[in-house]
């Protein structure tokens, strides 16, 4: 235990003198000693009692402006609430939840029932919530009470972890089936050739070998598509940083996709648009996939239009239009699912892997863009990709 200030000598002296006077005046020595003891005891207690003042000071020292400076540049979204009213939100929190959450009830920012239960309980704890900024994301909300009114809320993004575990199950479920089908026919034909040995007629052998080659090529396409898909998925959570000029890129990619024999069917209408932040290789792949699809599913003698323009919202819009049979409306929402085919037989015949649009969708998502599909039965389909223009990182005021 520590002493605070000097020992109260004057008090002690006063106590001793009073006791002496008491003893000599009344002659009751015991009473005098008792008074002295009590007196000294109170002095002792008052002097060495735990310093209460210190604790009160600590609670007062939650200076919110200091705290807000402390957390402002943290990479984790952090908020301070005063009786569940948001009083401070750091840069990341404002970026994710929007500026409007300041001075609002915390329920406006976290309306998920699990989060509200935690807020209402005013307790320390964690809650896992879905759909905070976007509808599919997953966040871990960690709330810690500082004192009776103030609380800190920290948000941890768990979307990537969730995605990985889901992607694994998806991949095993879909890909194994898709990989097994061509493998099964390759093995079947090779076995037949081996069993019959030289007895196979040359024309049969030729036909079998042709099928094996075709199936092997399909496997090759499938594997390379799967690899690009997984590459795009792996980078999905970091936004591309390169400034890309779209016009030359779209033109080159469209010509590449068409190749020499189909390039005459291309109709390019490309405007100059402001540069966008992107990954040039992925954007090229996006255009190639869309143009290749359009050439494949459009009528063979009809042109495919590739358009690039800046729309009213200032986004760069790439649209690819074919003139073919169109897509039935019930298929449209599913088109970007992996291995989804409106007509499996036809897609196989044209060498499709069922991954083209899934790759497109992932690339668009990584660029924070949007993919719209419009189709008229009997007339054709238009795939439009919109990519927001390049801008600085600061959130709008």
């Amino acid at each position, binding site marked *: 235990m520590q002493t605070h200030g000097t020992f109260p000598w004057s008090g002690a002296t006063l106590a001793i003198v009073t006791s002496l006077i008491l003893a000599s005046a009344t002659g009751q020595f015991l009473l005098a000693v008792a008074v002295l003891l009590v007196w000294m005891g109170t002095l002792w207690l008052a002097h060495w009692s735990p310093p209460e003042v210190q604790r009160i000071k600590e609670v007062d020292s939650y200076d919110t402006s200091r705290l807000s400076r402390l957390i402002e540049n943290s990479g984790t979204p952090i908020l301070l609430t005063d009786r569940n009213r948001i009083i401070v939100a750091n840069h990341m929190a404002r970026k994710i939840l*929007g500026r*409007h959450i300041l*001075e609002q009830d915390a329920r406006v920012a976290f309306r*998920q029932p699990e989060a509200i239960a935690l807020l209402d309980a005013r307790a320390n704890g964690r809650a896992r919530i879905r759909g905070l900024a976007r509808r599919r994301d997953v966040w871990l909300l960690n709330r810690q009470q500082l004192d009776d009114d103030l609380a800190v809320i920290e948000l941890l993004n768990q979307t990537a972890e969730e995605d990985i575990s889901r992607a694994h199950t998806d991949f095993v479920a879909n890909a194994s089936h898709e990989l097994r089908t061509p493998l099964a026919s390759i093995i079947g034909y090779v076995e037949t050739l081996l069993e019959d040995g030289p007895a196979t007629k040359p024309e049969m052998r030729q036909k079998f070998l042709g099928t094996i080659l075709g199936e092997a090529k399909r496997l090759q396409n499938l594997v390379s598509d799967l690899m690009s898909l997984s590459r795009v998925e792996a980078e999905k959570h970091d936004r591309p940083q390169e400034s890309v000029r779209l016009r030359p890129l779209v033109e080159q990619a469209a010509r590449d996709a068409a190749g020499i024999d189909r390039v005459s069917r291309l109709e390019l209408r490309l405007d100059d648009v402001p540069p966008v932040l992107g990954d040039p290789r992925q954007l090229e792949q996006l255009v190639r996939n869309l143009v290749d699809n359009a050439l494949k599913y459009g009528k063979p003698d009809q042109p495919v239009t590739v358009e690039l323009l800046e729309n009213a919202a200032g986004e760069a819009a790439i649209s690819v239009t074919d003139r073919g049979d169109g897509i039935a409306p019930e298929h449209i929402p599913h088109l970007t699912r992996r291995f989804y085919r409106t007509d499996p037989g036809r897609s196989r015949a044209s060498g499709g892997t069922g991954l083209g649009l899934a790759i497109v969708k992932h690339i668009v998502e990584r660029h924070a863009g949007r993919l719209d599909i419009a189709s008229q039965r009997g007339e054709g389909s238009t795939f439009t990709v919109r990519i927001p223009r390049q801008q600085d990182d600061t959130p709008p005021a």
Partner: protein
Amino acid sequence: MSEHTVKAFDEDITRLRGLIAEMGGLAELSIQESLDAMVRGDGELAEGVIKRDKKIDAIESEVDKLAVRIIALRAPMADDLREVIAALKIAGVVERIGDYSKNIAKRVGKIEGRGTFEPLTLLPAMGEIAAEMVHDVLTAYAARDPVLAREVIATDEKVDAFYNSIFRNVVSYMVENPAIISSAAQLLFVARNIERIGDHATNVAEMVHFAATGSYPPDEDGA
């Protein structure tokens, strides 16, 4: 919104907005869970959705009381009045959205032969769009963002198109499989409920636009 001289008014408005957000969060979860329950045939999950509706109703009446109290005691003007009126109306609409989810949940037990019932696979994609509309409109409300509100209104077209496609699909399925007409009819009601959820999200979006700008958004499709 700028601060008011009467601090208590700010507190009331904040509480009102908090209640609407809480209600919306519950309704959003109910849509998702009622559809999950429908697809998987999960009676327990459906039960949870039905119970949750009571909570939504309770918050609605709390919003009503608070809004009336604010109008009576603080006599708000201009954008403050719009805010309170919009909250009052939005609460009513969100409550309806909760009711539709409850209605979907109630039909969970009435669908037979789930494993082979093909039209059932069409619902989640439609529900997804409607749930996203509700999510976006609540975000628009929280941010007082008229642009996002108009986007939600534009999305309603997609839900309507989906409804028509499911309707045709289910009817032709009924013609081919008369044995399960009763299950298929239930499904039509479910699709109808989702379509209504989309419409109500549009209504909320109109009110968000009204609260933010003072005018209703122009009718784009002329409907």
